[in-house]
């Protein structure tokens, strides 16, 4: 990482918040497996359940993973649009 990155304030709090929510939804997914399997695989209109879940996880966990790499000091190239 360049020194400019090091000087920039890292998004610790935001990363922590998204991290906590991400862990929480994964905890629900893994601890309630039986209920989830029973309802999510019913087919028909119940198809909305896995689709909505995928969107929820992608927003929460997607934000977390982006912030995670920022906190780790890994960012995109400073040159606009890369090379």
């Amino acid at each position, binding site marked *: 990482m*360049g020194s400019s990155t090091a000087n920039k304030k890292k998004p610790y709090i935001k990363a922590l918040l998204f991290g906590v929510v991400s862990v929480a939804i994964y905890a629900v*997914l893994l601890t309630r*497996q039986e209920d989830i399997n029973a309802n999510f695989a019913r087919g028909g209109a119940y*198809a909305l359940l896995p689709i909505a879940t995928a969107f929820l*996880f*992608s927003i929460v*966990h997607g934000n977390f993973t982006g912030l995670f790499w920022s906190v780790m000091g890994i960012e995109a190239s400073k040159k606009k*649009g890369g090379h």
Partner: protein
Amino acid sequence: MHDIVKEAANFINLDTMTILYLFGVGFVGGLVSGFIGSGGAFVLTPAMMSLGVPALVAVASNMCHKFPKALIGAMKRAKYGQVDVKLGIVLGISAEAGVLFGAQIQENIKKAYGDAGSNLYVSVAFVVILAVVGGFVMMDALKTYRAGTQHEEEKTSKLALWVQSIQIPGTMVYFKSMNAKISVLFTIPLGFATGILAATIAVGGFIGVPSMIYVMGVPSMMASATELVIAFVMGLGGSFKYAMHGLVDIRLAMIILCGSLFGIQLGAMGTTYVKPFVIKLVMGVIMMIVLVSRGLMIPVYLSQLSLITPLADPTMKALKNVSFAIMGIALVTGAGIVLHAMWKGRREERLSLASAKEGLIHG
């Protein structure tokens, strides 16, 4: 639908090792997808099946992890100005139609020739497409590298210039990635072909990205990013279809997504550190290795169909294992090139920043 209900009831038990395995494969697959726009499915689906997941559930769950992953990847790369949303949506919708058509072909082959026939068709399609398209992509990347022109802007291919020059009134649409108008009579069939391929070999990007680059004249950086929009559109439609039949194991999909979102963020950032030809290189290398993997399976299916002298069981088992291992190698090699290129790019940027600073101090 009876089979489907039975399959859905067969959702596997998840232990810690299984979760870590899926997370790891998801991460590597995500890393490659973030970089070249696709990849991972060819390993993820067999990886799930190796855990005892029924084939249809593996395909459905892979698809349900693909669309949210592609969404995040596309959003990330849009920040770098690499995504042509309009082109992605046009190609994505036509690809969706191609998927339906491809699935129908698959079904007909399965009905006529059984599982081995269907597998043989998939493997032959894999080998032919990868040999032709992958070979072309690989040669182009190597030619650029050898000519030392990797620092220059990519040249639009003659075919793409011709396609862009064809004016068909009432069908012309402007796409920012090409900075040109192109007839939808070209984009729709290309999207459709991508969809057929996606339904057949599960990796539509292997034809989608090269066709955007060489047939439409989209720069490779934008083609690989726009492929993520296509993957999102197709993945969402496909997931919904499978979920309607209760085939998505959301736990598997979300665990793979857990790893792949870490990977896709990194792969997307990686593109900002490399020259466009690296995208082609990674794609070409992966396609060539997967070609070997699928090629090894052809004798197995020919034997099952009694088209050649039947192979002994241990030989078939060995070929299957070696084929799967080579696919894993393809993904890991691709990920290795991505990480290496990113590390090198970051080091160069650090050095140039440091020398610029030094110049300022001494100047």
